[in-house]
């Protein structure tokens, strides 16, 4: 008996303890002197401010429009540790306004700064007149304020409510931010009428992740026109979802990362179903099949490309003149749209009150408008063309399975001609037919057609091939001369084309010459395939230089092609390495030994591998009498590398840089 009692006491203790840890005892406006002493390992020399608590909740509430509204409440408490943390006292709240002028409302903004003066807490409150409003864009307003009387050591406390009629806009929650956070909590209460898909991401673990069920009554009021208003209540099962993260470190940026937003710990919501009592279930998110079907029936997407678009007849006749087959016609249409239209932004559908004809006249539009126009023009010529939606690298990953349209921000075209598939983007000047910009290679994309299919665009699918040949011979007069030829990868070619659109060839080669220093003279500069966007660019020029007549000459045969800096600078890394493509670079040098000299020392030939088969570097040099041959090759077989591989890849590049800096030593023949 005694033993049983003791056991239950232990159990009760545990439960109490669990409860104590699961709820943070904190209230807006209530603060004790002891709260200024923050004991946490996260308070170190790298923290400018620390979020003591960030607590949010979303609840549904009946409104007087006969519907339910979303009530989002937030309470955030931050301790400012030093001057660089003052920015934490600037608060910006974004609110949505619909085209018809309905807006999310910000209510009950309260903010206070606490300063510890001696053993007294001094409070300074925010005055409502110091809250500023700014119309940022058509559908976005921000409210901004800063807390008063902020000093090093201040604690700031603020709370606000957003009242929203837009149930598709259930506020997401970021557990991680610029400052470390001791306690981040979000609770969402969803009545059975609505189904949301929860999307959580990030590497931080939840302290609490719980769902409980209860029942709640909602009171609604409907005032419809002149009729008397009607009040009613409905009771519904409500699921309460609560997430807590404790001791979340601050987010940190790194180079060679697609976007930091892929790595932030957050939870997002997508409305999937509405299920009102006595009404049929409305599928909001639906399946890809359903979503595609709807998109295809939509005036802002499918309808304009399904139409005949007879207004294009005359224009297309001119554009496709003398085309001998469909491929040629498609290429001409693509070039026409690419060369005449300007992309003004991203998007996945046509803006309100805009037709393809408007876009055609305006010669500008978002990426969806331009590529949907391209699709309409291709279809006009009976060429099979479908829209493909995707999320660009900067926008983070789209969901691989669910049709979460909000995650997509870009639209390209898939054309099938003579059973070959081509992906086209006419929104970028000088992009070749069949190429997509590198930022499109960000995982799963979707073809929006009657049979919607997934397409994967992975950075690993791209390979930048670069080949350089350097020939150096003794000049008939004094010194050395030779030829330089390099064929660039497709993306580097695009970069060069963009550069040369704003400067001329002469200036470009002058710049190349300047890069070598005064010893080198460059002549006969030539650029091949500059205007043939489907081909890589080849650069050629002749060189003339003097090595002087010292007894010993040191010479790097790779000239300016040697990699001089390790691209992976920082010693350690938090996130994986994500490069835009794989690459394969080869440099071949064929050189005559300078007249009157002999080779005294050659760099050693060497070959190293990166993780067995993920990359390779070789430097092979041979001397046959008066001739030196060098072949230097750098291959990176993968675009993405795990965080654990960072040190290996940094060392690999460190070796490349070291090896490519080596010199040949020539000595005067006696």
């Amino acid at each position, binding site marked *: 008996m005694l033993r049983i009692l003791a056991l239950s006491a232990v159990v009760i203790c545990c439960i109490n303890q669990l409860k104590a840890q699961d709820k943070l005892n904190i209230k807006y406006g209530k603060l004790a002197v002891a709260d200024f002493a923050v004991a946490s390992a996260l308070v170190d020399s790298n923290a400018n401010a620390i979020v003591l608590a960030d607590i949010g909740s979303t609840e549904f509430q009946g409104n007087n429009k006969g519907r339910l509204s979303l009530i989002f409440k937030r309470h955030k408490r931050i301790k400012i540790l030093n001057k660089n943390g003052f920015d934490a006292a600037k608060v910006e709240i974004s609110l949505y306004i619909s085209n018809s002028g309905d807006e999310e409302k910000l209510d009950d903004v309260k903010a206070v700064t606490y300063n510890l003066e001696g053993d007294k807490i001094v409070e300074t409150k925010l005055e409502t007149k110091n809250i500023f409003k700014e119309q940022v864009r058509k559908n976005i307003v921000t409210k901004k304020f800063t807390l008063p009387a902020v000093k090093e050591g201040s604690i700031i406390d603020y709370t606000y409510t957003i009242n929203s009629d837009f149930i598709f806009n259930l506020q997401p929650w970021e557990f991680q931010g610029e400052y470390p956070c001791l306690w981040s909590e979000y609770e969402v209460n969803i009545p059975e009428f609505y189904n949301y898909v929860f999307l959580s991401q990030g590497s931080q673990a939840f302290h609490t992740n719980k769902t409980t069920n209860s029942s709640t009554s909602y009171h609604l009021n409907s005032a419809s026109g002149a009729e008397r208003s009607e009040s009613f209540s409905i009771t519904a099962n409500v699921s309460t979802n609560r997430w807590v993260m404790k001791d979340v470190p601050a987010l940190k940026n790194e180079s060679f990362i697609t976007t930091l937003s892929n790595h932030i710990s957050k939870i997002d919501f997508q409305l999937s179903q509405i299920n009102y009592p006595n009404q049929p279930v409305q599928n909001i998110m639906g399946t890809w099949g359903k979503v595609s079907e709807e998109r295809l029936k939509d005036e802002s997407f499918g309808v304009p490309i399904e139409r005949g678009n007879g207004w294009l007849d005359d224009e297309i006749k001119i554009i496709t003149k003398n085309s001998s087959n469909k491929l040629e016609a498609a290429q001409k249409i693509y070039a026409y749209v690419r060369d*005449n239209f300007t992309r003004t932004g991203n998007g996945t559908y046509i803006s309100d009150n805009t037709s393809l004809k408007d876009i055609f006249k305006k010669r500008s539009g978002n990426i969806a408008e331009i590529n949907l126009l391209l699709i309409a023009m291709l279809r006009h010529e009976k060429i099979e063309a479908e829209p493909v939606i995707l999320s660009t690298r900067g926008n983070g990953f789209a969901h691989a399975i669910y049709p979460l349209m909000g995650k997509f921000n870009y639209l390209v075209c898939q054309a099938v001609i003579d059973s070959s598939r081509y992906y086209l983007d006419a929104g970028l000047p000088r992009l070749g037919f069949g190429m997509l910009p590198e930022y499109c290679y960000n995982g799963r994309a979707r073809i929006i057609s009657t049979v919607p299919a997934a397409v994967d665009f992975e950075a690993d699918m791209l390979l930048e091939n670069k080949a350089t040949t350097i020939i150096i011979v003794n000049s008939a007069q004094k010194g050395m001369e030779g030829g330089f030829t390099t064929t660039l990868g497709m993306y580097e070619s695009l970069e060069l084309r963009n550069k040369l659109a704003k400067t001329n060839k002469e200036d470009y080669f*002058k710049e190349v010459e300047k890069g070598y220093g005064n010893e080198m003279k460059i002549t006969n500069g030539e650029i091949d395939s500059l205007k043939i966007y489907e081909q890589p660019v080849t650069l050629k020029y002749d060189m003339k230089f003097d090595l002087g007549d010292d007894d010993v000459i040191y010479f790097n045969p790779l000239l300016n092609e040697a990699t001089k800096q390790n691209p992976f600078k920082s*010693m350690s890394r938090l996130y994986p390495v994500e490069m835009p493509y794989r690459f394969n670079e080869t440099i071949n040098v064929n050189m005559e030994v300078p007249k009157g000299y002999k080779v005294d*020392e050659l760099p050693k030939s060497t070959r190293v591998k990166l993780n067995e088969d993920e990359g390779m570097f070789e430097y092979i040099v041979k001397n046959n009498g008066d001739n030196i041959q060098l072949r230097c090759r750098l291959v990176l077989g993968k675009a993405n590398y795990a965080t654990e591989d960072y040190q290996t890849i940094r060392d690999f590049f460190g070796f490349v840089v070291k090896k490519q800096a080596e010199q040949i030593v020539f000595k005067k023949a006696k």
Partner: protein
Amino acid sequence: MVSTRLFLLICFCSVYITVTAQYPVFTIPDSLAKSANMVKRTEETTIEIKNIGKARILIKYAYTILNEAGDRFAYFIDYYDRFRQINSITGTLYDALGTKIKQVKKKDIEDEAVDDNMSLATDSRTKYHNFYYKKYPYTVEYETEIEISGIFDLPDWRPVPRHNISVINSKFTIVTPADYTLRYKYNQGFKPVINSTASNKTYSWELKNTIAPELEIYGPDWDEITPVVLTAPTDFEIDGYKGSMDTWLHFGQFMNKLYAGKDVLPPAIKQKVHELTNGLADNKEKVKAIYNFLQQNTRYISIQLGIGGWQPFDASFVATKKYGDCKALSNYMVAMLKEAGIKGNTVLIYGGDEEDNMITDFPSNQFNHAIACVPLGKDTIWLECTSQTKQAGFMGSFTGNRKALLINDEGGYVVSTPYYKSNSNLQLRKIEAVIDENGNLITDINTRFTGEQQELHHSLIHSSTKEQRDKYLNTRLSLPTYTVTKTDYTEINNSLPEVYETLKIEAPNYATVTGKRLFIVPNIFNKSSTRLAQDKERKNIIRFKSCYKDVDTINIKIPAGYKPESLPKNIEINNAYGKYSTTYNIKDNDITLIRIHEKNAAQYPASAFAEVAAYYETIYKADRAKIVFVKAE
């Protein structure tokens, strides 16, 4: 019947307009098109000053865009706020032949808030329009009418704003009431044509058939080599405040009106000021004590609404909210100084790196920043009130080396902020390094920075976390691969501040080791990157603005058993362009290099360009010079 005829007439008019070619490109003379990305076909700015509180500005222009680099001139953008209203925007796009293609539609004009990345709130917004045309060449024509309330700021005329453009015609006209005195300043002999009637006076300027000068590195300010007409009011009014800016004295008197009554402190702050200063005998100490209090108890928050762009918040607002912008914080500082019985002043200034461009003989609104000053003769103290860390008395590159306007009870006076010469901007560095037999380098670096050269390190100390600082240091240096393993900073806060930096760095493979040789670049950290291309004849003077002095003393220990095979020559240059020397000493396996480089702000004629270029090329090469050691046999 009448209405039908009118209708027909309108029809004919529009037909007539559409068939008449405007601005065909072939009429541009080759000489003007040759090196241009854009040609101003016509441009006309007319300012009608109605009275001191009102003016109308009409701008009409047609620019031909010849290529993609000219696109930056193809769009329309203008701003508006409480004192500036855009009444209308119209425009037309023409193709190369001069055929009208389309017109500005109201719904295509974008309206956006100005985000200066700095302000919590501003009321400035912009209107933006773009035809997004891509068939070069083409011509855009825009016309806009702007109304300004209060003629505090009047537009200037810069018909040649950039290189690689040409101007066929640009006109600038100002109409004033007959009894109004307009002030203007022109360069390059651009006198106005003045016409008077009983009610009006008209000033006009015109520029024809001009090719923009080429952009040259280290050249003079653009305003010195292109036509500029500056304009300013005499009497003006803004938001109910009247003033005159015919002299700086009067300009300052107007500012006094805006500042009047803004310096009242709450009793608690008055008491605090006395607590801080009563025990101190020396005024300089009192200033420092108050400045320190300001830095500990305020922060910078920019709010620019209406007259708030020029008028500070009340000192009592800053005292309770503990924030303000540059004007508000300077004003608060001056108010606290006054309470302590010390005369301080607000100083209006143009802040920016190496910007000494105040036109002192033309009183007008030339400022973007405010600081405070305590005139104590040669001990005058200058105070940057928006910074929580800057040293009392130090201005540095943002506000030093320039003229500014001090406001006192009588009005405004032009003053000079401190000038920092090369001996104030020092970088004195000692390097002790060891290179092992594989070429790996380990080095201790001790550096003393002063004046403008300590600014970066001051901000590394105060504006970054240790992690950010380490990360920065680990990416900044031009070593191929390296790790900073130790960092330490100490600071001495004088009016000429100093920072002492201690670093330890490991750089694998810094030296190249081959079978029998060792290649080392002994100048590890301080390599000049200035290179001047000499492919074109220099047209304008050469001007260097920054000045500093660097001394590097480098000791490198190498493995035993090597003897030098190739050694750079010592260099000593002391000429009109600066001082530079490198001195090598090799003893057994110890290398010593002393590098001294001193640069002064100076100006040289265009004819000296080849010599200046050669001087910098010598430094460029000497800084990268290599020592080659070979294994002793």
